[in-house]
C-alpha cells in the first residue's frame, strides 16, 4: 500500500521535472536565415504589448501581440532591419511599445536619472565619511587637551 503511494508521488514529481517548457505563443514561424530567427526572438522580447501593460509580445496571448508578432515576421521577411521594425511599431503604437525608449528630451530622465541618483548617493556617502572623520579628529584633540588638563591638575596638586 505504502509502496503504491510512494510510486504515485515519484511519478508525479517526475512529470513535474521533465515536462517540456511551455510558451505563451504557440504560433510557428519559419525563417530563411538563422540571423532573421535571432532578430525575431530579440525583437519580440524588446517590443511591449500595448494591451497588457508589462509583457513583451513574445510572452503575451493578447490578439494584438499575435498581430504584432505576425507583422515582425512579415517585415523581417521583406528584409527590414531591426531598427526600422521598431520605428514601424512606434509609428503606430507610440513610444510605449519599446522597452528601449529613444533618447529624447522626454526620456532623458529615464536614461540619465539613475546615474544622477547614484552620483547624489556617492556625494552623500562621501560627505558622511568626511563628517565622521572630522568628529574623530576633534575627539583626539579633546582627549589630548584632557590629558594636558589632567597633567596640569596633577602638577598643581604636587
Amino acid at each position, binding site marked *: 500500500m505504502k509502496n503504491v503511494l510512494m510510486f504515485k508521488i515519484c511519478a508525479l514529481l517526475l512529470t513535474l521535472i521533465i515536462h517540456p517548457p511551455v510558451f505563451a505563443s504557440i504560433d510557428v514561424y519559419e525563417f530563411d536565415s538563422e540571423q532573421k530567427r535571432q532578430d525575431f526572438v530579440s525583437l519580440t522580447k524588446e517590443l511591449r504589448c500595448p494591451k497588457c*501593460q508589462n509583457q513583451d509580445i513574445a510572452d503575451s496571448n493578447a490578439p*494584438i501581440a499575435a*498581430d504584432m508578432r505576425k507583422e515582425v515576421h512579415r517585415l523581417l521577411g521583406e528584409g527590414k532591419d531591426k531598427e526600422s521594425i521598431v520605428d514601424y511599431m512606434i509609428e*503606430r503604437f507610440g513610444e510605449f511599445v519599446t522597452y528601449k525608449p529613444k533618447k529624447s528630451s522626454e526620456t532623458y530622465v529615464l536614461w540619465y536619472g539613475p546615474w544622477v541618483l547614484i552620483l547624489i548617493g556617492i556625494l552623500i556617502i562621501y*560627505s558622511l565619511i568626511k563628517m565622521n572623520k572630522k568628529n574623530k579628529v576633534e575627539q583626539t584633540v579633546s582627549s589630548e587637551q584632557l590629558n594636558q588638563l589632567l597633567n596640569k591638575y596633577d602638577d598643581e596638586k604636587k
Partner: protein
Amino acid sequence: MYKWIPLIIAVGLALVLYTAIGKDPTKLETARLNDPVPDFQLNELKNETRILTQEDLKGQVFLLNVWATWCPSCRAEHGYLVDLAKKGIPIIGLNYKDERKAAMAWLDSLGDPYSFNIYDPQGKLGFDLGVYGAPETYLIDKKGFVRYRHVGVVDDRAWQQSLEPLFTKLAK
C-alpha cells in the same frame, strides 16, 4: 544643513509621484494624433463591390468607430452611437477583425448608426491606426487627419466631456 536632506528627498519624491496620481496606465498616447488616416484600400461592409480608400474619409468631420461583433463593450456603446447618429453626427464604422455575415446581422438587429462601414477582416487598417482593442473612436477632421482618440465605450460622459467640444470646434 544635512538634517534637511531626507526632507528634500521626501518632498521631491512626493512631487514626482503626485504627477502620476489619477493617470490611467492602460490609456496610451495616440501615436497617430494629428497625422492623416493611413493609406488603405478595403471593401465596404454591406456592399462588397465598393472599394473604399482614405479619399472617402475627406470632406467632413466625423467619428470613426472601431467595432466588432466579438466585442462586448461595442454592444454596450452601440445604442449610444445610434442616438448620436439620429442627432446628425456622422459616424463611419471600421468593422475590425470580424465576419461580414455576423456584422451585417448585428446592424440589422441593433440598428445601423454608420454612414458606411470599412470592412477590415485582417485588422490591417486597425493595425496601421494603432488600434489595440475595440472599441476605439477617432475624431477625424475635414482633411482626413486624426484629431482625437477615445479608447473604450462612448457614453454620455465621454461624448460631452471630450468628443463633443472638439467636434463642434472642428466642424466650424
